[in-house]
């Protein structure tokens, strides 16, 4: 049996498990995504408190592991309570769904934990979510081994022309196209993402469509649930 102590982690999702337990999907620093059973936490005399196991809070976990699921032995919140608010909160739920859907359990990806901690602190600081989300999506894909090709034309290997239009092939990279091509992005949008510079609003809109296309490809063509609650403007229920 493996005993792990004081492992930095975040809870991505919790659901009821057996009679009084919770099954937590966690993102750990050293062991990637991990399923952790919190025994008896829904019972009245639990030593563990449900409120300590909410998403977005930086935690140190003690757990033991035999087989696929780990068993929680102790939990300690680190730092101030993380209180995402408003659109940052909805974005945080989207990030959690993305991580759970794209990362297999027990497959450690160096860089992912830091990228995750970083997007949470950006959302917590109240930044408009669009740009932090695009950076996180880029970093997540890189950590998973699907790094995006953002500097060169996939067809001729030429450096991207900032003013030209490109159609991004999820499994290849940018290919030059006409400005009317659906989902076309400008070279400068891709270069901004490569160089970590925030593009203008039009660029951000084009990158949002592009990243959804790329993520959908890596999700095997399926949609994320959170996409339905992240549309900008008035909620879709009123349109």
């Amino acid at each position, binding site marked *: 049996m493996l005993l792990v102590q004081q492992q930095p982690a975040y809870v991505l999702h919790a659901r009821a498990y057996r009679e009084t337990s919770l099954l937590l999907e966690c993102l750990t620093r050293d062991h990637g995504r991990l399923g952790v059973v919190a025994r008896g936490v829904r019972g009245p005399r639990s030593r563990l408190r449900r409120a300590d196991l909410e998403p977005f809070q930086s935690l140190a976990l003690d757990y033991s592991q035999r087989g696929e699921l780990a068993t929680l032995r102790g939990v300690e919140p680190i730092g101030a309570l993380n209180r995402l608010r408003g659109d940052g*909160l909805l974005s945080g739920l989207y990030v959690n769904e993305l991580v759970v859907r794209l990362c297999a359990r027990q497959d450690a990806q160096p860089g992912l934990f830091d990228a995750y901690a970083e997007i949470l602190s950006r959302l917590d600081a109240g930044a408009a979510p669009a740009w932090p989300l695009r950076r996180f999506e880029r970093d997540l894909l890189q950590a998973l081994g699907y790094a995006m090709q953002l500097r060169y034309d996939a067809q001729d290997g030429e450096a991207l022309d900032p003013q030209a239009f490109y159609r991004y092939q999820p499994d290849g990279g940018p290919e030059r196209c006409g400005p009317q091509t659906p989902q076309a992005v400008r070279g400068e949008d891709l270069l901004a993402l490569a160089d970590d510079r925030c593009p203008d609003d039009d660029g951000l809109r084009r990158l949002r469509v592009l990243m959804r296309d790329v993520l959908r490809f890596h999700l095997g063509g399926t949609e*994320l649930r959170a996409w339905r609650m992240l549309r900008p403007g008035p909620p879709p*229920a*009123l349109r």
Partner: protein
Amino acid sequence: MSASSPLLAELIDALRCLPGVGGKSAQRMAIQLLERDRGGGRRLASALEQAMERIGNCSRCRNFSEDEVCAVCANATRDPHILCVVESPSDLAAIEQATGYRGQYFVLLGRLSPLDGTGPEELGLHALAARLEEGEISEMIIATNPTVEGEATAHYLGRLASAAGIRATRLAHGVPLGGELEYVDRSTLAHAFGGRQAVE
């Protein structure tokens, strides 16, 4: 024991669908009913049968109801201008029992949770938006739970209300009466701190 009667085994197994009931408790319940309370058992069976067959959801508030419109929505003496949105029928029952609230309700039957497959559609938010558009509601009280998912739902509902030009309020969550700060858990304390009010 269960080998002696397949029906008893089936009953024990069926009772395990109740929350918090495992094999041992299910066996105790089944034997208690057979041994001492067959009348109660028959009543339970008939009530279960009727409830499962006839209880649906109110077309106005989504709470459980065997009528098209439930008794709370049909009650003409309740204030038609205030709408309280809750996650579950038990939250509605708690508010009815503990407060003097006399307005309308809307029951989400869940909370926004992408990883559980629950989005705006599953929570009936189209029906809620349509109701806000009717123009009769002037205030929406958002009474979702103070969890991450409850807060996300509250934010989404707030956007819905403001798009319809309706004032939205949120339940205050704070230090329990008789509680001392030192013993209040940190998330409650953080909520109370965030929702502090002017001293009058």
